[in-house]
C-alpha cells in the first residue's frame, strides 16, 4: 500500500471513528457506569434515526437539529426504561443480569419488527446540504457528512465529560459506578441518580441516531450491525471513560478503514472483533481503563 493511500485511509478512519464514538458514548454511560446491559442501545439509535427521517418529512427539519429536539423525548424514554428495568429486574436481585440481558435483547428485536411494520424494509434517508459533497483540501477530499458526524460526536463527548466532572449529578453518576452504598450514605438516592444518568445517555442516543441517517440511509435491520461495534468500543475503552471511548472508537474506525483499503478487505469484521476478544482475554479492564 502506498503512503498516500495509507494517509487517506487514516483520515477516513478518524472520521468514521468519530461517528462510532457518537454511537458509543451513551452506552459508555448506560453500561459502563450504570451497569445496565443495554443491548437495545443501537436499536434506540435507529429509532432516533427514523425520528429524524419523520421530522424532515413533516417539517423539513435538518437531521442534526431533529436529533437535538428528539433528545428531550428520548430523555423521558430513558428515564421510563430505567425505572421499569429497576423495578422489574434490579430490585429482584439474583439472576437480574440474565433476565435484563434477555429483556433488552427482546426489546431490540421487537423495535426492529415495529420499524418494519411502520416503515417497511425500504431504506430511508434524509437530505441536507452537507450530504453528497466533499471538502476539498488539495489532494484530499473529505465527505462533509462524515465531518459533521465526527464534529457532533466531539461535541457530545465534550458535553458529557463536562457534565460528568462538573455537575453534582454527573459526579454522582460516576460515584454510583464505584460504590452505590457509599453514595446513599452521603444522602443521594442511587436509583434517582441512575435514572437521570440513563436519561442523559438515552438523550445522546437521539442525536447519534440522527448522525446514523446523516452517514447513510437506514433500514430496520441496521441496529444489529452496530450492536457488536458499540460494545466492542465500550469494552475496549475500559468501562465508562468518555475519553477512552472516543479513543477506542477512533482506533476501531482507523483499523476498519485501513483494512478496507488493503488487499484483505473482506476480513475487516473479523479483525475488529478479534481485537475485542483479545482485549477481553488479556486486558479486561480495557485499553484505556484504569
Amino acid at each position, binding site marked *: 500500500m502506498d503512503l498516500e493511500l495509507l494517509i487517506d485511509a487514516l483520515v477516513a478512519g478518524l472520521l468514521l471513528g468519530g461517528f462510532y464514538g457518537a454511537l458509543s458514548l451513551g452506552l459508555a454511560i448506560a*453500561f459502563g457506569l450504570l451497569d445496565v*446491559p443495554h443491548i437495545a442501545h443501537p436499536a434506540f439509535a435507529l429509532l432516533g434515526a427514523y425520528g429524524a427521517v419523520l421530522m424532515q418529512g413533516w417539517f423539513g427539519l435538518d437531521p442534526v437539529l431533529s436529533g437535538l429536539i428528539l433528545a428531550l423525548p428520548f430523555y423521558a424514554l430513558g428515564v421510563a426504561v430505567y425505572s421499569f428495568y429497576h423495578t*422489574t429486574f434490579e430490585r*429482584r436481585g*439474583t*439472576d437480574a*443480569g*440474565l*433476565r435484563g*440481558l*434477555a*429483556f433488552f*435483547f*427482546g*426489546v431490540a*428485536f*421487537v423495535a*426492529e*419488527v*415495529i420499524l*418494519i*411494520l411502520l416503515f417497511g424494509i425500504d431504506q430511508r434517508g434524509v437530505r441536507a446540504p452537507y450530504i453528497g459533497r466533499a471538502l476539498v483540501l488539495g489532494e484530499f477530499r473529505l465527505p462533509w457528512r462524515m465531518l459533521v458526524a465526527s464534529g457532533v460526536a466531539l461535541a457530545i463527548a465534550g458535553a458529557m465529560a463536562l457534565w460528568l466532572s462538573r455537575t453534582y449529578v454527573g459526579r454522582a453518576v460516576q460515584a454510583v459506578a464505584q460504590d452505590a452504598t457509599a453514595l446513599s450514605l452521603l444522602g443521594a438516592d442511587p436509583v434517582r441518580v441512575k435514572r437521570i444518568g440513563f436519561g442523559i445517555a438515552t438523550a445522546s442516543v437521539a442525536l447519534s441516531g440522527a448522525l446514523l441517517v446523516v452517514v447513510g440511509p437506514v433500514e430496520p435491520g441496521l441496529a*444489529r450491525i452496530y*450492536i*457488536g461495534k458499540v*460494545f*466492542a468500543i465500550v*469494552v475496549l475503552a475500559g468501562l465508562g471513560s468518555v475519553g477512552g471511548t472516543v479513543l477506542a472508537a477512533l482506533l476501531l474506525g482507523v483499523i476498519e478503514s485501513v483494512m478496507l483499503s488493503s488487499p484483505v478487505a*473482506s*476480513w*475487516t*469484521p*473479523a479483525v475488529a*472483533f*478479534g481485537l*475485542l*476478544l483479545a482485549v*477481553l*482475554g488479556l486486558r*479486561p479492564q480495557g485499553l484505556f481503563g484504569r
Partner: protein
Amino acid sequence: MRSWVRFAAGGLVVLLLAALAARWLANDYLFFAAFVVLQFVVLATAWNILGGYGGYVNFGTGAFVATGAYAAVALQKLADLPLPLLVLAGTAAGAVLGSALGLLTLRLRGIYFAIATLAITIILETVVLNWDYVGGARGITLDRPHEDPFFGTYNRMLVVLMAGMAVVAVGIARWVGVSAFGRALSAIRDSEDAAEACGVPTLRRKVQAATLSGAMMGAAGAPLPLYLSFVDHTAAFGLNYAVSAMAMPMIGGTGHWIGPVIGAVLLGTAQQAVTVTISSEVNVLITGLLLIGFVVAAPRGILGWLGR
C-alpha cells in the same frame, strides 16, 4: 434411581414413536417441521445448561450451530465420513469453541461472556465467508443420498437421529440438574463470590458448562447441512437460533430440565404454524414479545405457573 428408569423408558418411547412415524407416516411435511422443533429442543436444552443453571447468557447459538454444521461440511467434503462421525465432529468442534470462549471470558462478569459470544459470531461468519473450501459466501450444495433403506427418505432418518439427540440432550440436562455439578452451577448463578467461598471451583465449573453446552449445540448443527442438502452462512448463522434458543428456556422455565423442552415444543411448533398461516413478521414479533413478556411477568416461565 426409579425416576431414571422412568425417564429412560419415556425417552425410548419417544424414539420408538419417531421411528415408527418415520417408517409409516406418509406426510413428509410433518418431518420437516419435526426436525426444526427437535433441533430447538436440543439447542434450548443446551443453552439452558449454561444460561439457566449457570446464569451466563449466550447470544451466539448461531455460531455454535454453524461450527457444528461447517465441521460436518468440511469433513464430508474431505473424507466423505459416515453420518455418526460427522455428528461426532460437530460435537467436538462445538465443545472446543465453548471451552475456548469459556476460558477467555468466564473469569469476567457474565455480560462479557455475552458480548464475546456476539463477537465470535461475527468472526466465525467472516471466516466462513472467506473460506472457499466450504463454499464461502455462495454456500455449498452437499452430495448426499436421498433414500434411506429403512425409513424411506434420508430426511426421515435425520429426524429420527435428531429425536435421539433430543432425548440424549434432555437426559444430560436432567442429570446436570440433580448432580453436584448442577448444584455448583446454581450456586454460581445465585452468587459467584459465595460459591467461591464455599469451595466451588467456579471457573472450572463454568468452563465445563460452556464446553458441554457448546458440544450439544455443535451436535445439533451437524445434521443441518445434510437436512438442507445445502448450507450457506445465512442459514447456519441465522439470528433466529440465537433468539429462540434463549426465548424457549425463558418461556418454559430455566430452573428445571423440562422448561426448555416445554418452551421449545410450544414456541417451535407455534413458529412453524405461524410461518405457514399468518406471516413471518408476526412470527418474529410473537417470539420477541413472548420473550419480553415472560422475563418481565413470569420470571420462572410456564413452570412457575405450574408451581414447580
